[in-house]
């Protein structure tokens, strides 16, 4: 026990005096999480708040223009402008403004579109009651290009955003067409008998949609934003960078000769290595705590949303502990396998960056290709991230995260076992 405690104290003193090591463990992840959360805040926020700038050109100045403008406003994801530099926007100036990136999208409603719609509705009703057979394609006048609603998008906008715009325009058009034709039917029927109730059938929600309060399944107030992604992501990255001071320490022990001195001593070398493992596992937990405090207090002070971590603290502790042990295992393995500091730094850093990239640290996994999503399942950083997301976003408890925690523990155990076997193999002289 004395040897074990002495080993922990020795490792702690060495770490506290290693400024570069402390920087890698605590300053680097702090800087990364602040910078990345700030940088990615915009793109995340665009999907959650009325932030997309939209230039709207209403040349119709009638029903169609008014309805489309209302529907765009009701979507709550656009900041709508109709003027450019104090002048009413035209199709040409709107197009230029979008091309210059001043607006994400431009929508132009052509002049006379409401009249064109009403004229066609009249034709449809007249042909319906003409007593002659009429094919559907000859039922109304096809709109020429000058009568089409136009939209232009910033090339940097995503596919899903384009779908949103098209959906709003299609929904508005369908509603306008059906309502206008219905009104013309009313007018026709009024020639024969009075119509007492003119109903807007568009408001008849015979088929309705209901949103269920899912707060028992998901954290009620959690919105997946830049902070919710970046804090757990860079926490996992920071925890896995434990390998650097840990493996460096093992290589230095060999270089200094203290490794040989310890082998002469009457205590098993595993006692000494366990001291390192315990200390760096605690370091992983401290890193986690620091990153959570950053997410909850520092990032909101910088204008970002506050991190929500849920209330399943036991599950959180299990994930942090298993992730720290996995990172420590990786550190011991790298420190045992490589004989020089340079080899260790190069291999270890690139490995952790690759594991982070495929593990969804830099970008969320759900926007990756199907192949990458499959590959990501082999990254221990993804296991940790997945478990954190399960707890933070889905109110997950231990039963939800134990598969990921178990994978991290198995990774850790395998790394320790391989290190031990390689150490034994190398010890045979």
């Amino acid at each position: 026990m004395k040897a074990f405690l002495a080993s922990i104290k020795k490792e702690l003193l060495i770490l506290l005096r290693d400024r570069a090591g402390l920087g890698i463990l605590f300053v680097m992840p702090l800087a990364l999480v602040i910078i990345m959360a700030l940088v990615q805040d915009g793109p995340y926020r665009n999907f959650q708040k009325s932030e997309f700038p939209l230039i709207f050109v209403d040349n119709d100045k009638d029903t169609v223009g008014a309805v489309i403008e209302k529907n765009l406003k009701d979507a709550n994801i656009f900041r709508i402008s109709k003027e450019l530099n104090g002048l009413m926007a035209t199709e040409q100036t709107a197009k230029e403004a979008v091309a210059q990136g001043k607006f994400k999208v431009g929508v132009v409603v052509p002049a006379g579109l409401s009249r064109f719609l009403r004229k066609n509705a009249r034709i449809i009703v007249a042909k319906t009651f003409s007593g002659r057979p009429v094919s559907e394609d000859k039922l109304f006048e096809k709109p020429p290009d000058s009568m089409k609603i136009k939209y232009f998008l910033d090339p940097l906008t995503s596919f899903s955003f384009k779908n949103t715009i098209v959906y709003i325009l299609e929904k508005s058009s369908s509603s306008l067409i059906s309502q206008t034709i219905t009104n013309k039917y009313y007018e026709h029927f009024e020639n024969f008998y009075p119509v007492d109730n003119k109903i807007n059938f568009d408001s008849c929600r015979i088929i309705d949609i209901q949103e269920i309060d899912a707060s028992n399944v998901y954290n009620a107030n959690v919105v997946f934003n830049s902070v919710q992604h970046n804090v757990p992501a860079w926490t996992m990255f920071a925890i896995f960078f434990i390998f650097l001071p840990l493996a460096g320490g093992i290589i230095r022990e060999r270089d200094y000769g203290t490794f040989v001195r310890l082998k002469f001593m009457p205590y098993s070398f595993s006692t000494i290595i366990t001291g390192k493992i315990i200390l760096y596992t605690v370091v992983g937990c401290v890193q986690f705590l620091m990153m959570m405090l950053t997410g909850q207090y520092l990032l909101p002070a910088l204008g970002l949303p506050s991190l929500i971590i849920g209330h399943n603290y036991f599950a959180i502790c299990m994930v942090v502990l298993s992730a720290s042990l996995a990172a420590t295992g990786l550190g011991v393995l790298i420190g045992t396998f490589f004989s020089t500091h340079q080899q260790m730094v190069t291999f270890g850093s690139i490995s952790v960056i690759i594991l982070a990239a495929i593990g969804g640290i830099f970008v969320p996994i759900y926007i990756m290709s199907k192949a990458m999503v499959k590959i990501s399942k082999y990254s221990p950083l993804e296991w940790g991230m997945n478990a954190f997301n399960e707890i933070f976003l889905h109110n997950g408890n231990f039963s939800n995260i134990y598969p990921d925690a178990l994978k991290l523990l198995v990774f850790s155990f395998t790394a320790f076992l391989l290190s031990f076997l390689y150490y034994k193999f190398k010890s045979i002289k």
Partner: protein
Amino acid sequence: MENSIIIKVEDLSKIYKGSKNPAVDTIRVSITKNEIFGLLGPNGAGKTTLISVLCGLYKPSSGKVYIKNSDLHQNLKSLKNIIGIVPQDIALYPTLTARENLLFFGKVYGLNRHYLDEKISECLTLLELEHSKDKKISTFSGGMKRRINIIAGLLHDPEILFLDEPTVGIDIHSKKIIIDYLTEINKKGTTIIYTSHLIAEAEDFCSYIAIMNKGRIIARGTPAELIQSFYNSKDLEDVFLELTEKSNQ
């Protein structure tokens, strides 16, 4: 085995993995209790390998080592408590202070804090390092580091102390302090097994010497016996040169 013999080596050979030639070849030697046993030899003679096998770091390819009548490699854990090692490298943590280093190694031996405080203070005083106890090892001179390196191997008062070139590359002042200190602990009962390239130092310091070359012991005896056995030699250095040249031919 006679009671006064503390280490007995029987037909010890060590061949490293992947090597054809033995680093240590059929060595037979007995070391008497309270002796200062010097192992001399040119580079690559097998001194460090022999010491590494004698203190249990490497297993022998063949042969046996007995320490206090016990087979070393079968009773390694218990025998490690009576062995002290001072490796050739400065096996210390440079960012820890002298005291922190010594406390750590002492605690790994399971020594209690009170004993360690007294022992460290005593050793530091004897080796003239008391004033530097709270300085980091990285700020020490070569001689100071060597002295701390020796103390680290002595904290548990071993009965047998192995020293692998303990005075290499240091100034005369530090060398004198170290040799005086080692002589002192030998007088108190510690058997010392010592390797060195410094023949003159070994001649003064050792009570018994074995000269090694190419993994074998080519001569042994007290320094006086060795000098006497070669008519043309005036000191141990002449003996050493004559023997190793002859052995190389």
